[in-house]
């Protein structure tokens, strides 16, 4: 596991002793334990804004509005079969080379690429010179137009950040209203109390306002984020 063995046990013990003394004073240990255990097991929802309490069509529209408000571009297609052409359309529109990189995601690999034979595809994590990457979103959140991407060989994390242009395929059926809907989806797939190495919540392309508070897109992450929503 780790190359380095650092012993901070003394610090740890001192800290925990102090915390236990200060915090555990008035309340008995069993009550405190219970409170923590219950909260973690239930992972109950706090107040969820009404905004995304809409039907599926409403949530899709909200997602689009919110994503566009943060400078993502969003198109819908009826089925997966339409995705390759939606991709080449996008690349042509922005004068981008006809070459994309994606991971081992089964939905992506199973797309009818024969429809776009001129499109070159590479597989794997991103390298410095990849111009366009393609990911398949795990889910999305209508509330703020946020995509949820999970790490793994299917959709390597580096594809979300290194290339200048990021295209994401989003199945409308995985779109939820709130972040809480996304947590529920993650738990269903990955289990309770655990997450993949990285979950990226992405709302639009990279930006900075660090110079004179002027917003500039494409700081270090992608300059462009294009979402292809598959409705079918």
């Amino acid at each position, binding site marked *: *596991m*780790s190359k*380095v063995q*650092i012993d*901070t046990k003394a*610090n*740890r013990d001192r*800290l*925990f002793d*102090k*915390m236990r003394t200060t*915090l555990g004073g008035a*309340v008995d240990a069993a009550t*405190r*334990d219970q*409170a923590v255990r219950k*909260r*973690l097991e239930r*992972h*109950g929802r*706090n*107040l969820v*804004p*009404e*905004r995304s309490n809409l039907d599926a069509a409403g949530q899709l529209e909200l997602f689009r509005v919110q994503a566009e408000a*943060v400078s993502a571009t969003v198109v819908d297609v009826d089925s997966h079969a339409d995705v390759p052409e939606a991709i080449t359309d996008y690349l042509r529109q922005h004068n981008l080379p006809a070459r994309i990189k994606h991971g081992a995601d089964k939905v992506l690999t199973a797309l009818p690429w024969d429809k776009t034979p001129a499109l070159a595809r590479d597989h*794997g994590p991103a390298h*410095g010179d990849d111009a366009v990457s393609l990911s398949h979103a795990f889910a999305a959140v209508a509330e703020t137009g*946020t995509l949820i991407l999970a*790490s*793994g060989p299917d959709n*390597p994390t*580096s594809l979300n*950040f290194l290339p200048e242009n990021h295209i994401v395929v989003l199945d409308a059926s995985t779109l939820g209203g*709130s*972040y*809480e809907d996304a*947590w529920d989806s993650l738990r269903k797939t990955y289990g309770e109390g*655990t*997450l*993949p*190495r*990285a*979950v990226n*919540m*992405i*709302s*639009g*392309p*990279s*930006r*900075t306002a*660090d*110079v*004179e508070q*002027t917003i500039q897109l*494409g*700081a*270090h*992450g992608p300059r462009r984020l294009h979402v292809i929503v598959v409705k079918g």
Partner: protein
Amino acid sequence: MDITSPAFKSNVKRALADPQLQRAMGNVKRGFIKKRQAAFDKLPEFDALRDQARDIKNHTLAHLDLYYEIYEQKVRDAGGEVHWASTAEDARDIILQICQAHGARTVTKGKSMIAEEIALNDHLEQAGITPVETDLGEYIIQLRNEPPSHIIGPAIHLNRDQVEESFRAVHTDLPDDRPLGEVSELVDEARAILRQKYIDADVGITGANYLVAETGTSIIVTNEGNGDLTQTLPKVHIVCASLEKMVPTLEDVSTILRVLARSATGQEFSTYTTLSTGARRTEDVDGPEEYHVVVLDNGRSDMLGTEFQDMLRCIRCGACMNHCPVYHAVGGHAYGWVYPGPMGSVLTPTLIGIDQAGHLPNASSFCGRCEAVCPMRIPLPKMMRHWREREFERHLTPRTVRTSLALWAYFARRPALYHLTSSMFIRALKLFAFGRARLKSVPLAGGWTRHRDLPMPTGQTFQEMWRAGGDE
């Protein structure tokens, strides 16, 4: 970072006389306040969420030891390690050890106020390791060898011509005649320069906005993507997190996330909110092989159970300083250390001592705007007042202030004597004023009359007139 908080007054003098800074602060004032208000207006549940965020943090702090036990195990389960640092020195040493164990030569850094607090960069450089700041604001101030002046926008005190000047001075490999007058040109240049550094870095160090006990997760909230490149590409990811970052569940963190960006920049959500859990899994094709979390105490555990505990709810959004008229007037550097503005005025004395940071909680008119916008409902003026109480108890309050206060209080506690004396006082003042309605200069009132005229009393005291039975 050098501490100049004791020199607050001379820092202020310099800041007020700096036209570049004053111009930049004008932008800060106008920009952030409007944006937060717009975000507030768009979310009807905003205030209710603030209340819940406060309650979540209070619950967490009350059970902090228990959550950390669970968190630590979860991190281990995910292939990561938690290291415990009591002091800034411990944290620096742990991080250096990890870097040295991997033979690190360059280290990329996402923005981390904890890294500033422990003065990590100097420590790494002294050991022959090059830290590269990747957040654009941090990168800019690293080039200029300046400390950050705001916890969200470290380079907020600079105008773009100053940034251009720095880029030209340092990026000497690039053609002299290249245009750099526009913000887009500056950002593009930073992007190009940093690209290869991300890829070459041996270790990536980030902060953490939150640690989640439920899953053993650290969360960073950014807009640039630099934090993500920093923590995904190198072989080793080190997270520096201070003790109060703990949050119980994913649901709890989403409540707090809802008020974070809105309070900080007016965005509804930051561009990238990333949840990191452990090291690369066997099936991963990218991501760090090692994941280390350094949990820093450095005085936080001492705040538990004290009148300053509420300050541990702070989520470092910056809303307080964005709305503070004192911060607007003097900028962040005047505060003299890592944390400026109202939150800095409460936190800094905890971390470096009230004897060094005494000016900070005193340089406030208690207007209350900070508390009014704090997403975690921290009673900042109240805690600044607690610092003044501590100073008073320890006789750190300046002697002249203490003496005049004691004198005044003597009279104020004795109404009959007070009324007699105040009547005499205004007679004297009126005589001294020779009938003028205001004075430009009054002995012992130099603090007032340096910048303002002092209106004179109009005649008798109200109490005198009331006792005399009538109006005028």
